[in-house]
């Protein structure tokens, strides 16, 4: 069992989410940065999708009540274990009574703490991913709070293993997202069609697991007619009438009523989880024929390492 001594800004239990239910209004949820999450699980010997803690922006303080093996990955939070620095993207054996502390994030937004055997939570549609809006998964569907206790899972694990060089993603406070045009891109003004790709935007404080409001050059669209509510996905960039783009993230609504200007390609979706308030975001056009090549290459790199994983 582990105990939350301080939950930090926003910490939740996440797994690979509950895909396939958007027609019921239920988003996939799950780890916002699927890659770092999978790597943390890999290091402790779990299957890549085992439930783990996701800590946004830092401040998580955990006490372990039983011996186990842990791994950390994702945003750089200068973690310390038993008062000594613990390297990001590494694993460590812990003894009952040991404590782990994450400082505020200096690079990226979300860090993952995986525990050998996984962690246990309330399951809904075969996932313990926390989705606070509908109070699903996690512990009572809520963010973790001081005093919460979480049992280790009983998933069969392999021996812990160190991450080989070159597999930890390089995180940056300036994220480049490759996109394909959205279905209403032709409703953007011509200048805005270009400006979307010129200067970077900045994620505002209105950034959470649902979405990120972006500051920057105003993106203007045709709003003489209103748009019928239509499906959106994580990585859909919408332009509301106030001209400030909204990027949908992993807990984003299943439908939206604004102009859909662009869609982030599959290989870059994991990066959405590392957007923090203040992160610079540049959009790059991805050509039709390039997206599958990029994805095939990325999948080849990681599926050799992580059994069953794909972006």
């Amino acid at each position, binding site marked *: 069992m582990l105990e939350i001594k301080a939950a930090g800004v926003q910490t939740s239990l996440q797994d690979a989410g509950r*895909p*396939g239910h*958007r*027609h*019921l*209004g*239920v988003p996939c949820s799950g780890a916002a940065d699927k890659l770092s999450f999978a790597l943390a699980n890999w290091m402790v010997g779990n299957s890549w999708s085992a439930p783990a803690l996701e800590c946004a922006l830092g401040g998580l303080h955990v006490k372990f009540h039983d011996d186990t093996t842990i791994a950390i990955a994702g945003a750089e939070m200068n973690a310390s274990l038993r008062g000594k620095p613990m390297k990001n993207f590494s694993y460590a054996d812990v003894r009952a009574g040991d404590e782990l502390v994450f400082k505020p994030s200096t690079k990226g937004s979300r860090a993952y703490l995986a525990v050998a055997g996984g962690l246990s939570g309330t399951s*809904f549609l075969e996932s313990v991913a926390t989705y606070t*809006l*509908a*109070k*699903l998964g996690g512990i009572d*569907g809520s963010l973790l709070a001081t005093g919460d206790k979480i049992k280790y899972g009983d998933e069969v694990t392999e021996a812990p293993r160190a991450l080989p060089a070159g597999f930890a993603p390089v995180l940056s406070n300036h994220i480049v997202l490759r*996109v*394909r045009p*959205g*279905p209403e891109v032709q409703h953007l003004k011509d200048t805005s069609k270009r400006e979307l790709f010129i200067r970077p935007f900045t994620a505002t404080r209105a950034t959470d697991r649902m979405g990120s409001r972006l500051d920057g050059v105003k993106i203007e669209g045709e709003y003489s007619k*209103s748009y*019928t*509510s*239509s*499906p959106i*996905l994580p*990585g*859909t960039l919408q332009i509301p009438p106030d001209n400030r783009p909204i990027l949908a993230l992993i807990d984003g*609504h*299943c*439908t*939206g009523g604004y102009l859909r200007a662009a*869609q*982030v*390609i*599959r290989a870059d979706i994991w990066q959405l989880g590392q957007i923090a308030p203040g992160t610079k975001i540049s959009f790059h056009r*991805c050509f*039709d024929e390039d*997206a*599958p090549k990029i*994805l*095939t290459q990325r*999948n080849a790199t990681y599926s050799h390492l992580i059994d069953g994983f*794909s*972006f």
Partner: protein
Amino acid sequence: MSLKPPRIVPYGDAALLIQYETDGFSKDVASAVQALATSLRANGYWDEIVPAYESILVAFNPAQTSMESAKRKLENKVINRDSASVKSGRLIEIPVCYAATYGPDMGNIMKSSGLSKKEIIKLHSDNNYLVCMMGFIPGFPFLSNVPAPLHHPRHETPRLKVPAGSVGIAGWQTGIYGLESPGGWQIIGRTPEVIFDKSRKAPFLIEAGDRVRFVPITAKAYEAYHA
């Protein structure tokens, strides 16, 4: 019913959008969308099938299917769909109390329509609505069009909290808040029925493709519902 075949266009690199051409709400399009979504779901092949008023988002895993082959599969389905095999959804009766306590925006609709409250209730409830889409939140059914006199824009500034079960109008749409949530719809009543309950064996009371009929109930009946 003869509809122009929909366009099938890429949505990012892992989904396609089946888009019908309409000008405002079309009952024929909405029915075609539900029928096609049902038949696609029977395939068990797609990652997500999200029907909406005039389009269907179909997601796939690009590591397993190329965009071209996914598009071909959908085109074949659109062409070869056997419309006779599509069964119509369930008809679900939803009790609604239109009393002022539960429908704070009834006055707005009275003003814009020039109708009495009784007439509005009659217009709103004397209709079988098609459930066209679910979302933005779990269990929120977006229903087909309300009669023209009831059309009313959303609030300019959304309420921070709309109680679960609230029944609202936005433009020509009507819907039910499955959960307490922020929202900008004009609220004209509330159902005591629990639309979404994660602990129930069937958590979702309503699904896309069903039809919904509102049955007016008194405040007394509303309060007695859970007693």
